[in-house]
């Protein structure tokens, strides 16, 4: 069969092919990615969109957890101070119940107890980044208001709503306890217990009974405090889980879209060799035909 006398279009097509391969390999090497356009691998390109979404959510949950942790820790350490203050009140009550105490001594203790009461109100009105942590969701104003009576009556003006924050897909964490539940629970009302103690000390009444009531309020509060400990523990273990997931998502992203650098480098070498071979063929091609010998 007669051979096509003009091989140039074939050679140009071959040259184009090897240059295309060079371009693809160079792109992979420079971006470190094998999926640079959806057509490089349509399925993986779509999965990468979902992967990026999951990674964004994962990072978002981690960020939320650290925001929530600050609030939870503040509430937890505040309650710890409240329990310590109540312990101090109990100690003062026991001291006042001692028969050797004079009226003046008890008056002095009562003043000290009033100081503790103000400290307790102040602790119950603790805020984190401008938000009152024991106000339910009425975080913009102090939840406990003391009147001018001596000892003051303390009333709760917050609500009993609990906020939830997502810290995982379908995983919501309760992030607050309403102040009413912590400080004003009937039977364990912290402020009434301390008020009662002050009154009993002032009047030298049934101090022992009042001390017991403060102790009851303190134990109740300690039990409630476990909520914050639990929440912090959940946040911690979820952080560990999310960090593992983050790693897995990063690995998945690699599998889906990262370039195989060794393969890309070898492709590059191969395509450059092809280009050189084609160019060499083309340059030889033009030199030889019969006319050259007719001299």
């Amino acid at each position, binding site marked *: *069969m*007669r*051979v*096509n*006398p*003009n091989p140039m*279009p*074939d050679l140009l*097509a071959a040259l184009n092919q090897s240059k295309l391969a060079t371009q693809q390999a160079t792109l992979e090497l420079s971006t470190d990615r094998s999926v*640079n*356009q*959806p*057509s*490089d*691998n*349509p*399925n993986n*390109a*779509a*999965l*990468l*969109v*979902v*992967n*990026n*979404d999951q990674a*964004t*959510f994962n*990072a*978002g*949950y981690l*960020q*939320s957890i650290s*925001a*929530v942790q600050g*609030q939870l820790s503040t509430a937890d350490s505040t309650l710890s101070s409240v329990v310590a203050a109540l312990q101090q009140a109990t100690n003062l009550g026991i001291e006042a119940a001692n028969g050797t105490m004079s009226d003046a001594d008890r008056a002095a203790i009562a003043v000290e107890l009033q100081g503790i009461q103000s400290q307790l109100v102040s602790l119950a009105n603790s805020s984190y*980044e401008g*938000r009152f942590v024991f*106000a*339910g*969701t*009425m*975080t*913009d104003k102090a939840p406990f208001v003391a009147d001018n009576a001596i000892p003051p009556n303390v009333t709760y003006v917050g*609500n009993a*709503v609990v*906020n*939830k*924050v*997502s810290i995982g897909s379908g995983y*919501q964490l309760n*992030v607050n306890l309403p102040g009413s539940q912590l400080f004003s629970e009937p039977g364990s009302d912290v402020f009434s217990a301390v008020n009662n103690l002050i009154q009993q000390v002032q009047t030298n009444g049934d101090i022992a009974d009042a001390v017991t009531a403060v102790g009851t309020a303190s134990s109740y509060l300690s039990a409630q405090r476990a909520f914050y400990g639990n929440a912090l523990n959940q946040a911690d273990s979820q952080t560990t889980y999310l960090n593992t997931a983050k790693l897995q998502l990063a690995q998945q992203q690699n599998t889906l*879209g990262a370039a195989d650098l060794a393969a890309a480098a070898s492709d590059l070498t191969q395509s450059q060799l092809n280009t050189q071979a084609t160019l060499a063929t083309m340059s030889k091609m033009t030199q030889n*035909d*019969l*006319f050259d010998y*007719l001299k």
Partner: protein
Amino acid sequence: MSGLFGTLSIALSSLSVSQQEMATTSNNVANANTTGYSREVPDVAAGDPIAEGSLSVGTGVVLQKIESLRDSILEIQLNQATQQQSQLNSSLAQLQQLQTQFASSTSGIGADISNFFNSLQQLSPDPSNLNLRQSVLTAASTLATDFNNTASNLQTQRSNLDLNVEQGVGQVNTLTAQIASVDAQISNLQNAHLDASSLVDTQTTLIRQLSGLIDVSVIPTNQGITLATANGTTLVSGSRSYALSTQLGSGNVQHIMAGSQDITASLTGGSLAGMVQIRDQEIPGIGTSLDELATGLATNLNAANAKGFDLENPSQPGGDIFSGTGAAATLKVTMTDPALIAASSDGTTGSNGNLINFANVAETALGNGKTPINSYASIVFQVGNDTSNTSSSADASSLILQQLQNQRGSISGVSLDEEAANLIQYQTAYQAAARVVSTVNSLLSDAVNLGLGAAVQ
């Protein structure tokens, strides 16, 4: 006619034929790189012998015709392969342009959707924080802007394609007019029994160019050729050409008209078919998916905001975040005050109870049965898959075209080696004939001077 003059006459025929053969070779060499040129070979035959008594004596050589070597079946296959290749290449170029809009998984609409929901998630621990609320509005506006830009880029590409289609139709008309005019010249030459090879080459080249644009098939007839598209529209009939026209039609794009018949949708090959396919199918398809996504997402988010209460009017349900929710192109963030995001489920400042309704939008299937992010991922898949498939088809089709061109080259291509060999052959034949002439001349001179020499001596 025998004797020395007869010999002279034979030698002269040889000289003349050798010259014409060398002219043919020269023409071949000259046109070695001419597109569409088919090499020519001289067809020579021995002259009719004459009877001289019982002998039959040759009368030299006759050039019967100069034949162009071409395979008409191959030309038809080449036309078809060209149509397919042009269609795929023009589709591919447009798809490659299209897919750049959807190339990144970490930016663009997909990432915007993820970032928007993440901004709401960040608002959840501190729902009254105005900075965090502003981030939500900023993320929403980035999302809306990217929807707008993508939709507008799609529209721009579509408008450019529309213009290209119009220009393509103009080129088709120019080519069909030229083909018809060449056909008239060919008929004239053939009626006068003259060689029309080079015009046939020209016509073949023009038809090949036309095949790059539209799906024509060639039907040879007694009155020249007829060119018709696959759906039967006649473009050229002998020396007459029939122009196509464009007319603004449904979809607000130019429709291709043959007379009053709309042939836009029935084109099956050539770059026009490729462009029409992208303009009328691919881009509107992606546009619809984008609109569905934008509409579904924005409507659901507005509905989520209406379920809660904002910081400004805690007694009334929240207002709209987005306006222009009918299409990706018109989507806009209408909310300017971050305090108006209805994070609260009960009107209290610190409540984040309604944010779960926003978060649920991310998990809720839209009208297409997919969640927002999966809807976007499937657009990415569709564009990538269409591009990748078209690219593979274009590669395969280009190989076919290349092989056909090789075959054509092996039949019609000019080989310089061959031409050089022919040249030697013709040159030698000419030299030999010239030698015969000089020998006959010398013999005739001898004959004229016969006996004269003896007298002189």
